[in-house]
C-alpha cells in the first residue's frame, strides 16, 4: 500500500508487532531493499540493505549495538559498524567500500502510526 501524504510517498512495511527488538528485517520499498530495526527503546530505524563493503544486500542481518550514545548496526559480512542515526560508517575495519559505493549508509525516514511502520524513501536523511 502506498500512501500519499502531501508531496511525500510513504510505504507501509509492517506492524511494529511484527518486529523483534534488536533483530533486523529486510523490506522492499518501491523496489528498494531496506533494512528495518526495532530497538529496545522502542525506536524504529531504516537504512539501505546494501552493505557497501561487500556489495551484498545483508545489512538487515547484522548485529545492533551502540558506540557511545549512537545506536549502531554492524555488517554481518566484514563487520564494519554504521550509525543508525545518520548512516555514517564509524568503523571501517581498515577496508574500502566496493568501487562506486559510498562508505556510509543511506538512512530512510520512519514514521510510526497506530502501531504500523511507514518508510519514506524520498525523505532520505
Amino acid at each position, binding site marked *: 500500500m502506498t500512501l500519499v501524504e502531501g508531496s511525500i510517498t510513504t510505504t507501509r512495511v*509492517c506492524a511494529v508487532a511484527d518486529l523483534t527488538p534488536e533483530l533486523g528485517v529486510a523490506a522492499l520499498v518501491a523496489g528498494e531493499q531496506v533494512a528495518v530495526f526495532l530497538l529496545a527503546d522502542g525506536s524504529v530505524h531504516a537504512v539501505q540493505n546494501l552493505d*557497501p563493503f561487500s556489495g551484498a544486500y545483508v545489512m538487515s542481518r547484522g548485529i*545492533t*549495538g*551502540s558506540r557511545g550514545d549512537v545506536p549502531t548496526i554492524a555488517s554481518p*559480512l566484514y563487520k564494519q559498524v554504521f550509525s543508525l542515526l545518520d548512516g555514517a560508517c564509524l568503523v571501517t575495519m581498515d577496508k*574500502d567500500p566496493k568501487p562506486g559505493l559510498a562508505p556510509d549508509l543511506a538512512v530512510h525516514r520512519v514514521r510510526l502510526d497506530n502501531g504500523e511502520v511507514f518508510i519514506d524513501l524520498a525523505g532520505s536523511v
Partner: protein
Amino acid sequence: MTTEHIVVVGGGMVAHRFTEALRARDTGGRYSVEVLAEEPRAPYDRVALTSYFTGRTPEDLQLGDPALWDDPLVTLRRDSGATAVDRARRVVTVEGGREVAYDHLVLATGSYAWAPPTPGADLPGVFMYRTVDDVAALRGWVEERREALGRPVRGAVIGGGLLGLEAAGALQGLGCVSTVIQFSDRLMNLQVDEGGGEALKRLIEKLGVTVRVKTATTAIRADKDGHVGSLIFADGGEQLVDVVVFATGVRPRDELGAAAGLELGARGGVVVDDTCLTADPAVTAIGEVACIQGACIGLIAPGNTMAEIAVDRLLGGASTFPGADTATKLKLLGVDVASFGDAFATTPGALEMVYADPVNGVYKKLVLTDDATTLLGGVLVGDASAYASLRPQVGARLQGDPAGWLLPEGAIERPNVELPDEAGVCSCNNVSAGAIRDSVNHDGCTDLGAVKACTKAGTSCGSCLPLVKKIMATELEKSGIEVSNALCEHVEMSRAQLFDAVRVAELTTFSEIMDRFGTGRGCDICKPAIASILASLYNQHVLAEGRAALQDTNDRVMANMQKDGTYSVVPRVPGGEILPEHLILIGQIAQDYGLYTKITGGQRIDMFGARLDQLPGIWKRLVDAGMESGQAYGKSLRTVKSCVGSDWCRYGVQDSVGLAIALELRYRGLRSPHKLKFGVSGCARECAEARGKDVGVIATDKGWNIYVGGNGGFTPVHAQLLVEDVDDEAVFRIIDRYLMFYIRTADRLQRTAPWQQEYEGGLDAIRKVVVDDSLGICADLDAHMARHVDTYEDEWKAVLNDPERLKQFTSFVNAPDQPDPSLAYVEQRGQRRPATPQEREAGPVLIASTTLEVRS
C-alpha cells in the same frame, strides 16, 4: 616584533607538512604564511590517490586537520599558479598578474608526470596519473567508453614501475582488461632485482593483468572516431586499446626556479644544501622539486623531512638532511612488494641469500656483508611480512639466523628482535623505536591509538604497525602495566572473568548480565561473546528466547553467510563415515535447489548458495532422513577427522573411525570461545593429520596418545602431547576436562593453541589441572560436560518444530514470497557460482537464482 611573511609556491603534500609544522612550532607567531596552490583544492594525500577508485572522494583524501587553513596566520590561495619570481624585489607573480611580496620564499612545486614524446599521446583517452583531476577524468572516460562500447574496456598502462602497477590496479578496479607495458626487462626495475621481477610478473599475471616487458611503444593510433585505438610497438606488434595511462616517471617542476636564475641539478631540480636553502638565503626548496645531495627524490618521507628541516632552520634550529631512506613497501593489487637498503648488492663483497618458491610466487632476498653478519638490504615479493622487522636492522648486526627471515613464517622460529632505541621504525613519519618506547613510558600511552596520535607512527602507509604494536606491548609488559583486556566499551571484564562472574551469579539472560556487569546496550563484540558464554554454560538453544539478536549472523540463521548474502548448508557427517542413502539425499537436495556442492577439508559435504528463505525447506529434508546440523557456522565442535583405521587398513592398531564418531557425537553442539576440530589416527603414520587439530588422538599398541593445541590457519602449530597410552574411558575423561577448562578460561575468539601457549605455566600447568586436579575443579568440569552431553538436541530439528522461530527465515517482511532480487549467478564446470561485477554488467550470461527450477 613585526611578522615576517613566508610565501610557499605549490600546494602539495610537502607544502602542507611545512605549513602544519610551522604553525605547530612557531608559537610566538614570528611568521605568517601564504600558500599559492595551482590546483583547485587544499593539499591532499597524493599517495592515497588510487583509493579514489574504491569510492573515496577528494574530501576523504584531505590531509590533516582542515582547521589549519582557518589559522589567522595562514592563507591558502587555490587556483593560484605562480608564473614568475623576482628575487631582487622579493615578489612572486601569480596568474592574472597579481604580485605577492615575501620575506622568505619556499618552493614546493613538486613534479609533473612525464611522458616520452610519442605520436598520438594527445589523443582523447590518453591520461596521466598525478592529480585528483587526472584520476577523475580517467574514471569518467572508462565509464563513458564502457557504456558506449557495450563490452569491457581495454586498458593499457605504459610503464611498469611502482606507479604503473598502481594505475593497472586502478584500471582493473574499474573493470577494464588491462595490460602493463614495460620498456625494461622486468617490472619495478628500480626497486627489485631480476628474481623479484620474475616473481612479481607471475603474481600480477595471476590477477588477470597482462604484462609485456622489453617493449617500446613507438606510437598511439586513433580509431575511426578519433579516440585512442591501438598501441604500436617497436617490434612491429600492435595492441587494441580504449584507454591508455602513462606512468613513465616524473620530472621536477623547476621552471620557476630556473627562470629566476637559481642553479639546477644535472637532471633538473632546484639545487639546495643540506639545510634546504638555495644559493639565495631568502629561498628554500623542499619536496620533489628540490635537488638535494645531488638528486630529486620522488617519495613523501624525505619530502616531509625537508619540510621539518626548513621550519627548524627558519626558527633558528640547526638540523640537516640525513639522507633519504628509499625503502618501499607496497601492496599492489594485493601483492606484497618490499625493497630496502642496498637491494641490488652493490656494496663490495656483499653476499646475497635468496629464497624462491615459484609455485606460490614468493621471492625473498637478503643482502649481507661479506661475513654474513650485517644486514645491508633486501627484496621481498609475495610475502613481505618480515619487512617491518628487517628494515630497521639495515646497517646493524642481523639478529638470529638469517634463514629465519627468509623461510615462510612458522617454518623455523623467527628471531625475536629487540631493536635499539635509535632504529627507525616508521619511515613515513621518521619515528624511532625509542620514540615509541618513550610514548609508553613517559607520555602514558597504553594502546595503539594513543601511540599513533602521540608519535604519528603508523599514520601514513601503515606498514610499520605490526612492529609499533609489538614494541608497545613489550614496553607495557616490562613496566607491569596491565594491557586492558576489556571485552569492549560496554564490558570492562575479559571473557574469562565474565564467564566466571556469570557462572557464579547464575545469570541466564543478556539483560541481567549487562545490568550487573556492563553498561549501555552492547555491540557486535560483547553480544556474541555473551551468547556464547550462555550457550556453553546452559546448553540452551542458540535461538532461545531473546538470544537470536545476540548471535552473529551465522549462528542466528544456523548457516554460513557467503559473499553474496546466501548461505551454505553442511550436515554433520560424524568421523567422515557416511551412509550411501545420505550421500544420495545430499545430491538430490543440491540438484533440486541448484546448490553448488563441494567436499570440504573436514570430510563432509558443503552445499552453497541457499537463500535465507530456502534454509528451512532444505533442513526439513535432511532432518527427516536423520541427518543433523554440522555447526559449520558455530564457534563449537566442527569435525572429527578420521583415518580408516584397524577395520580395513593393514597397519591400523585401533579403531580410529569408531573413536572419531564417538568423540564427534559426544561434543557436537558444544559452544566454545572459538571453533574446535579433532582428528583420530589409527596408527603412528597419522593419516588423519590429528596433530594439526585442537585435539588429536593417535593410536598406539597400548591405547591412545592425546595431543592438544594444534592449529592450522594463519599461524600453524602442531599439537603437543598431553597424555600417553590411555584407554578409551580416559580419552573421554581427559578431553572433557581439557575442553571445559579451555571454555572457561580462554579469551574471546582465542583458539586452543594460543590459549595453551599463553596460559601461565603452559601445557604442564594445564596437565596438572586436568590430570592431577591441582585446582580441585575436575568434579565440576566433569559435571558440566555431563550436563552438555545429556541435554544435547539438534538445533535445526528444534527450529523446524517452532513456527515462531521459523518466521525469521523470510526474505522480506512485506514480501515474503519474493526472493532477494540482487542475486545473480553464472555457470562454471557444470555448477553455478556468484557472478562477478563485470559479468553482471555484461548481462546475458546470468542465471538468476529465481529462475532455477526449485522443487521444495
